[in-house]
């Protein structure tokens, strides 16, 4: 290895030579700077998200200019091909699901049927199509905002002197999408980690509730503690509690062979019932609200910007969790054990791994991640927990893990997609009157198309290049 180190390598080796205190200080300083400017970074991110079509076109333009130096279109095609290849199938699956969802919307349009019933077939079809466009435009704008509005807001803010207020309003969509994606990321990671370890955790929903509840309890029980202690304490308590709740299912599987699909479903119901009791009973704050006390402000996950932008630190936590999960799975011996147990428990046993312990550990970590979803909701958004907190994140997480191929990066991408759908659904309902459940339909179709790529390939007449990664197999039968 005598080759000269260059660029980043050189940089790395220089840093490695620093004394450890210098590393610590510089890392701390870097973190400090990031925290200080985080408000602006986040705003930039949201604006970029809102303006993404423009940015993509801009990027393509730049690429086109660059490509002229490398031989033009063929080079650009190849470059795009290699970069976009892993995205093709998921993108097509989402597209197909949206198109099918569109058909569902059109086919269930009462107004259109009335028009057709009145003999105006053409008008009916036109109406259905018009309503569909309206619904999808509302969905898009509710989720990602309108670029025109963002641009005008920037203009008004910068030149018109109205400050940040108009921009805040304009990037509410992107912000909502990201905020909605936070619990998705955590829960998706939880399920993905389970998948990697050969476990199918359907219990994320219950674990979310447990994490949420416990973090809120901690958050209001120690009002005198400073935030720097209380916030981490609440987060960790919630995560641990959910982890233990999840580990119960792992323990049952390890000790008795009880299939985790059944036990986690049952644990879900148990946690729902118990939380009903606890919320309308012992922990009820004001008689008649079925809601706990509010967390003290010190334990809030801080928000970056002012209302109505609700982006909070949970999003950063979620990204960190994704990085940590990836690191754990692929860079550590624990992850090696989990992946081995997940693909072949017999070989894992043969290799001297403790399969039972790994199951418990994996379910613990899975529960912990799911719990963080609840924590981020509780400390970041609602600041308390009330009856009806369950939002189905735990079930959608299954789809996310599949869509992201159980890969943390993929899960984050898929979560943002789902966050977008969910954030847009409210606008779609309020403007076009389409029930939000269309999102659920689209989601299930996405899973179908991802899980059975043959369908997508047949529909789009893609070549079967046989590079599909093997799917994790869960169905090994129940019990024993």
């Amino acid at each position, binding site marked *: 290895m005598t080759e000269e180190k260059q660029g980043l390598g050189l940089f790395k080796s220089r840093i490695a030579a620093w004394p450890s205190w210098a590393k610590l200080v510089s890392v701390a300083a870097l973190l400090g700077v990031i925290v200080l400017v985080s408000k602006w970074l986040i705003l930039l991110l949201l604006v970029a998200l809102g303006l993404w079509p*423009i940015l993509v076109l801009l990027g393509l333009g730049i690429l086109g200019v660059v490509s002229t130096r490398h031989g033009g279109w063929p080079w650009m095609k190849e470059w795009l091909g290699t970069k976009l290849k892993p995205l093709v199938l998921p993108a097509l699956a989402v597209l197909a699901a949206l198109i099918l969802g569109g058909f569902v919307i059109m086919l269930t349009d009462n107004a259109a049927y009335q028009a057709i019933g009145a003999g105006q077939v053409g008008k009916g079809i036109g109406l259905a199509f018009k309503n569909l466009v309206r619904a999808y435009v509302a969905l898009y704008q509710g989720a990602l905002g309108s670029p025109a509005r963002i641009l005008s807001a920037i203009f008004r803010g910068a030149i018109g002197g109205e400050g940040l207020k108009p921009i805040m309003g304009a990037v509410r969509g992107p912000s909502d999408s990201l905020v909605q994606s936070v619990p998705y990321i955590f829960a998706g990671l939880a399920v993905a980690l389970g998948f990697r370890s050969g476990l199918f955790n359907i219990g994320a929903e219950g674990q979310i509730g447990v994490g949420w509840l416990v973090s809120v309890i901690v958050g209001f029980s120690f009002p005198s503690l400073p935030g720097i202690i209380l916030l981490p304490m609440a987060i960790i308590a919630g995560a641990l509690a959910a982890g233990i709740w999840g580990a119960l299912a792992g323990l049952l599987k390890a000790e008795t062979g009880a299939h985790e699909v059944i036990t986690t479903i049952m644990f879900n119901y148990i946690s729902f019932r118990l939380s009903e009791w606890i919320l309308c009973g012992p922990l009820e704050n004001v008689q008649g609200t079925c809601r706990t006390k509010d967390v003290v402000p010190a334990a809030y996950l801080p928000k970056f910007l002012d209302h109505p932008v609700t982006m909070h630190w949970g999003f950063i936590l979620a990204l960190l969790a994704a990085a940590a999960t990836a690191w754990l799975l692929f860079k550590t011996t624990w992850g090696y054990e989990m992946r081995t147990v997940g693909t072949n428990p017999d070989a894992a046993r043969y290799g001297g791994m403790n399969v039972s312990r790994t199951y418990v550990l994996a379910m613990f970590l899975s529960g912990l991640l799911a719990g963080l979803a609840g924590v981020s909701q509780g400390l970041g958004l609602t600041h308390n927990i009330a009856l009806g907190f369950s939002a189905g994140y735990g079930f959608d997480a299954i789809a996310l893990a599949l869509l992201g191929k159980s890969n943390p990066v993929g899960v984050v991408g898929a979560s943002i997609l789902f966050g977008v759908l969910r954030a847009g659904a409210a606008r779609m309902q309020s403007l076009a009157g389409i029930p939000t459940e269309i999102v659920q339909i689209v989601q299930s179709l996405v899973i179908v198309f991802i899980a059975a790529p043959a369908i997508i390939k047949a529909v789009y007449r893609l070549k079967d290049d046989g590079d599909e990664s093997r799917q994790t197999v869960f169905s090994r039968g129940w019990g024993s």
Partner: protein
Amino acid sequence: MRKYTLISILLVALVLLSGCGPALPEGCEKGDLKVGMVSDVGGIDDASFNENTWAGLERADEELAVCAKFIESQAQADYEKNITEFAEQDYDLIITVGFLLGDATAKMAEQYPDVNFGIIDFAYDPPIPNVAGIVFNVDEASFPIGYLAAGMAVEQDSDDPQVGYVGGMQIPPVEQFIVAYEAGVNYYNEQHGTDVKFKGVYVGDFEAPDQGKIQGNSLIDEGADVIMGCGGKTGNGGLAAAKERGKLGIGVDVDQYNTLPNEKDILITSTMKRLDNAVYSVIESLINDEFPGGGLYIGALANGGVGLAPYHDVDVPEDLQQEVSDILNAVEAGELDTGW
């Protein structure tokens, strides 16, 4: 090649979609009063709060210069977001349904002082200037109905008269019905020296008619003669059991004689909680610039916000009818304690 074509089509479509700009049709006439409703997690078709509230909004939409829209909340974390959705679109009035939204409504009312809010089944202490609490003295109607039910139970089965209820979840708006109902039964016992027993079950779910029915049957097995179904669809299950077993039933919220075609002939009456009327009159008051911001709209016997549905197919003895209407008057006049 095909892939790239597809992807570029997708891209262009998205750009176009987003570029359609702010000129999104809202489906509202200009100048209309914009009223939004945010449901709780029960959804717009919960056969209860949300549905009845929406009925009021729809009526306002048809009869007044009002444009009404709703968003269903899917989770607790959605409440603030959904209220914001309406507030940012400059809605004039936002109705939030149910005590579960109490917190979110208060916070958002602070954020948007120019928007008017109305919240169902909740009252703030101290009041918030731009929020009107819409509450109901359901107990005023429930108490006489308890009395009536006890009377009918004695009528049906004088050896062992029993009155029962099938409840959804044990939450305050439901308890308000049931506590006064029980007090009414006890009042009957005091007045007539009878021993009408009172028992019931909470199913723990508002959307479990099958469980409601099984548990209603169970109540009837233990001797219940009159069943009050109280708690959305679960309560309806209890009424279905009463119908199947030839017992009598009592509806809630609206005159369920009209909403339950299968069970209508066994319904003595219904404890009406006219959410629709309340919402309608709150909207009306806003139009007339009389919005009770910072105050309460109280649905009571006096203003018809709560009440007894008319008797339909079940024969109620004349004297019992008379006693009930006497009690109604007494309660309205505040002479009787409803136990709530």
